[in-house]
């Protein structure tokens, strides 16, 4: 069932191949820009690979991959109901929540598949392109970047899937999921003005903390907060899936 659902998510070429292609292209653009900058002023920019490349890859995949993952996730949640195929999945007699869980696994797999080529290319370029000793990359730094580039898009993809399942409309799901990620979630950070402890448990500070941020709640608490936020949206979608008539 997970494989079948993965096929439906990956088959939506606009969102899946679009995300894979845009993030891959972004990494190529980062490399080209670094090459150009290096060739213009090699003394000031001695390295192309190493740390500069890693920073560029992190920014490109984190942002563009995140947007793409949100679109993939929102559609994963809404598409079957909007298209009318949900009825035929339910008709097979599978447990609805089991199907929803399988869809989550398929979504996470799809996000990793979409971001994988860009991340692989980025890591390759970090080590292959010329770099000076000042631009060395420690394994822990590389690990942090990869973890950040995987976790942020994945978390927002699953949240978007919950939103999509709740709304059942493709356009609305994508719009609301993007709004949540780029407007509502940052605004929630304002809670810290009233309570630093509570503010640290909002989604963005907590995510930042578990992906290497120095400031904030203890890591276990931050991790629990991230899980809680994801679970909140996931459960909202699950309730809708379980209760709806098709």
């Amino acid at each position, binding site marked *: 069932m997970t*494989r079948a659902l993965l096929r439906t998510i990956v088959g939506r070429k606009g969102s899946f191949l679009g995300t894979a292609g845009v993030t891959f292209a972004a990494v190529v653009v980062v490399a080209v820009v670094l090459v150009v900058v290096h060739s213009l002023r090699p003394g000031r920019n001695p390295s192309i690979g190493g740390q500069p490349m890693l920073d560029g890859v992190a920014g490109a995949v984190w942002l563009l991959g995140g947007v793409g993952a949100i679109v993939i996730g929102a559609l994963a949640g809404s598409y079957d109901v909007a298209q009318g195929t949900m009825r035929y999945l339910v008709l*097979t007699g*599978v447990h609805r929540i089991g199907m929803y869980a399988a869809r989550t696994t398929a979504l996470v797999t799809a996000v990793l598949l979409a971001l994988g080529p860009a991340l692989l290319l980025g890591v390759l370029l970090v080590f292959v392109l010329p770099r000076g000793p000042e631009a060395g990359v420690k394994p822990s730094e590389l690990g942090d970047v990869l973890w950040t580039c995987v976790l942020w898009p994945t978390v927002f993809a699953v949240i978007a899937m919950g939103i999509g399942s709740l709304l059942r409309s493709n356009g609305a799901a994508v719009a609301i999921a993007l709004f949540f990620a780029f407007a509502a979630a940052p605004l929630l950070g304002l809670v810290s003005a009233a309570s630093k402890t509570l503010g640290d448990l909002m989604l963005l500070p907590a995510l930042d903390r578990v992906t290497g941020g120095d400031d904030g709640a203890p890591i276990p608490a931050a991790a629990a907060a991230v899980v809680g936020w994801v679970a909140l949206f996931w459960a909202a979608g699950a309730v809708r899936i379980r209760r709806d008539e098709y």
Partner: protein
Amino acid sequence: MSAAEPIIRLTGVTKRFGRTVAVDDVTIDVPRGRCLGWLGPNGSGKTTLIRCMLGLARPTSGTIHVRGREVPRDVRAALAGVGAIVEEPRFYPYLSGRRNLEVAAGFVGGGAFARIDGALARVDLTRSAALAVKKYSLGMRQRLGVARCLLSDPELLILDEPSNGLDPAGMAEFRRMIRSFVELDGRTVFVSSHLLDEVEKIADDIAIVQSGALVAHGTVADLLAGGAATVRLRVDDPGRAAGVLGGLGFVTGIEARERRTLDVSLERVDDESAIALTRALVEAGVGVAEVVRRAESLEERFLEITGAPLVEPEERRA
């Protein structure tokens, strides 16, 4: 579960949407190995009842048993041997026909993957299997929907308005396919439609619904036999003939028509009634030029039962 046990048993099934009653206290047993036509005008609750039977919607009251299992309580076991098309078959348009069936097979499990080729061949889509569904015609999508139904090797097929949008050739092909499921495979087919002619051609039994309520149920022959039976007479003296016929116990009505013609309603139209009627007229000196038995068509019978045309006025205009 015994073969004699009905494959579908509905007992007092009602489904309300607010104050609107979509399905009204429907009770019926659907026997195995036959094709039941669920006939009613648009908006008569046909699809709602099917959705309830398939666990896609919950009945407000009443009980539903499919394959001996209660729905929705035991819906998973009930649907394990059911294939269905509800309203219209929907697919992932960006995937090919075969890929769509593979997705469905991933959910159905069991031997579903192994049945894909056979199902495609059965609906004559083998050559188009690699084509994206968005390029399929409506008829091809309907057939692909049937192929998807076959993946679970169902003993019961529930098809909601399966010939909607098909051209005459497509409808004929669909009829042949449905009959083959009953006659060759021994499957049960529950087919809903507002197309009386279609249902008459494919169904063994017919249930007529109106405003959500079941108003008649039986074989086609039974339904027709229950209808008004008339004999059309052409005589030389209609007035005198009406007087003679009015004295016969088995005559239930007489309607004068143009050209010395009478429509005579009888309790039943059989040889004995026709002979008795003719003899009475001849013995009374009425010349009989023509006697024609008129059996009611299913459409006339439908009108008689429901008091309403099967096709809504707007549809007629369309």
